[in-house]
């Protein structure tokens, strides 16, 4: 059945590997995106690595990554566990919780941009001082706002993963725990959480690697501003390549993005111990 991998492999090579090699090649050249491409040795690498903006963008990327992991994981875990039990209205609630994921990032960003507008937004319109903050205009607050909006979009997705995983935990385990006199809380911490270990790793990998390439929502919501407060690595790459016409250094940033992403994915697997794809479930 190994031929079945061919279509996926072909797509991956055409849209993953070949552009990647292209970017690697471009990183050793000088090109403004319009004229001819000139080989430039390590000039682009020197220019990109010598630019303090790169390190700032890396810092912002890791900050957004860490904050959104910290914010998303507990909430999606709890929502996932809540939705997994078969009780009344939960099917309906699951549909409602899922809505944010159906919207495009650009639509979400435009909507939040309008709601958070300091002059015509929700806070100003309803005259609620608590909501009337400069959400996207102050450096620290803007980072938090971006993390919130990103999380709002992706919590449903991770909840779905957790919901599926919780439903896979054999019922017999909970029944045994009940007989042993375990309460709800201790059943959650002693059975549900350990059983979800590999789901947590999968979900975290998706979050961490996903936030590396996160671009559209931040681009529409803040354009990396105010100043460069929310300029993540992907945005820095875009601005260098397509606004400043420096394709060489932009390709260097692209290569760095790939390396950081690969490194993080490997690290997360290592933390998980053994192979995360092995099933830990009885009979599943």
């Amino acid at each position, binding site marked *: 059945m190994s031929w079945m991998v061919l279509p996926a492999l072909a797509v991956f090579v055409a849209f993953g590997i070949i552009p990647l090699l292209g970017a690697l090649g471009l990183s050793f050249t000088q090109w403004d995106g319009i004229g001819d491409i000139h080989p430039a040795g390590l000039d682009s690498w020197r220019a990109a690595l010598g630019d303090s903006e790169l390190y700032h963008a890396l810092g912002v990327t890791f900050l957004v990554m860490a904050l959104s992991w910290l914010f998303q994981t507990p909430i999606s875990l709890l929502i996932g566990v809540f939705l997994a039990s078969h009780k009344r209205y939960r099917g309906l609630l699951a549909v409602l919780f899922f809505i944010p994921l159906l919207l495009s990032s650009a639509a979400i960003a435009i909507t939040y941009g309008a709601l958070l507008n300091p002059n015509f937004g929700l806070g100003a319109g309803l005259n609620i001082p608590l909501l009337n903050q400069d959400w996207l*205009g102050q450096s620290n607050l803007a980072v938090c706002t971006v993390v919130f909006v990103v999380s709002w979009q992706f919590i449903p997705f991770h909840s779905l993963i957790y919901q599926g995983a919780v439903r896979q935990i054999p019922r017999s385990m909970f029944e045994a725990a009940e007989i042993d006199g375990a309460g709800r809380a201790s059943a959650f911490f002693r059975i549900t959480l350990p059983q979800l270990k590999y789901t947590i790793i999968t979900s975290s990998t998706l979050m961490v690697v996903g936030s590396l390439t996160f671009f559209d929502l931040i681009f529409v919501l803040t354009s990396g501003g105010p100043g460069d407060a929310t300029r993540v690595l992907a945005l820095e790459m875009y601005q260098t390549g397509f606004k*400043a016409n420096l394709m060489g250094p932009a390709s260097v940033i692209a290569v760095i993005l790939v390396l950081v992403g690969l490194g993080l994915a490997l690290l997360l697997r290592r933390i998980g111990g053994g192979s995360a794809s092995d099933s830990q479930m009885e009979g599943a």
Partner: protein
Amino acid sequence: MERSPISRRTLLSLTAAAGAGAALAACGSSGPGGGGSSDAKGGTASYWFLTGQPGEGIRQAAAERFNKANPDNKLQFTAFENDAYKQKIKTAIGAGQAPTLIWGWGGGGLKSYVDAGQVEDLTGWFGENAAVKDRLFPSSFGPATVGGKIYAMPCETVQPIVLYYNKKVFAQAGAQPPQSFEDMMALIPTFKKAGVTPFSLAGKARWTNMMWLEFLLDRIGGPEVFQSVFEGEKDAWSDPAVLDMLTKIQTMVQAGAFGKGFSSVDAADNADQALLYTGKAAMMLHGGWTYGSMKKDGGDFVSGGNLGWMNFPPVAGGKGDPTDTVGNPGQYLAISSKATAEQKATAKKFFTSGVLDADETKAWINDGGSVPVVKGTEAVLAASPDAAFLKYVYDTSVNAKVFAQSWDQALSPTAAEALLDNIAKLFQMDVTPQQWVTNMNQVIGK
């Protein structure tokens, strides 16, 4: 139940894959430049321009009129949103898929196309067709000229940057329009006390902030300071006038001149104009093109005579001439050097008979509230319902001792991006004036 060797699902996925493949192939073959040459006749020239009323309708009507008059040499036009267009046109030119007619702002962007050999040299053509050249404002040819040669046809309108104010808000606060920069500073606390933002500013767009730097530097140090930056003189930003200007900007930011949250206000949705016409802000420094959109969106704000305008006032002790102005001396149409001979001929025909014909000129004046870059429109301007504003724009443009091109358009894209980036940080108080000068000196001539 026995399963047939090829299940229905396999068939379905195969059809889906074939469909996707066909779709991809279709994407490949109908490139933008190809659209012009493969469809219809060889003389069909492709033409991209900007969306946004009233300009979009005027551009479209002009192209349609040309097509009606020239059924054999048509224009195939597509409209794009401003920021999206700036990226798309660069990518298309780099990929050799440029439209025949390349709409733009001239200056540094045009120079990068010239350096790459992507646009036609029109010097000779303008020499042969002196009538086409002579009917346009001579000042509009500045940004179309690179190294003494003309590479683009000026079109559309002249757009100086104007200091607008809301007369109603001024009357309510009992204030007078500022006569000097010092008056402007004094008005900040007056309006803040009245709960009004002194100056509306869409800081998210960055080039909006730049207009403040352009005028302040001109009024303090004269146009020569930026000119030497433009010419690539080493450490040109180190002029003391620059430091003075940057310090004044940060003083304004700290005094709350631009209101709370200005750095997240976006110019793309005209939120800055809305602040002015809803009376939430007292003044706004913005391009002449905003007159048309405020007239359209602001209810009776413009027609009721509540909008005031003036040139940026002088700074005490400054060297700049108070008649100087900054902005767009015109918009520009270049011809792609990759186009076929027939397409180029169509484009040139459009230059002679289509661009700023009598109808388009009238439309820019009456519907656009703007001054076209054509000579001899005084009578139409005076008859327009917006005669007062148009006369102001016309006089400002014609009488300006120096009509400087916007900095981000004049500089190369690389230097312009560094400039906008550092300007955003300046307004955010992330850099000191001294750091700003150091950062910007590094990209001079790049």
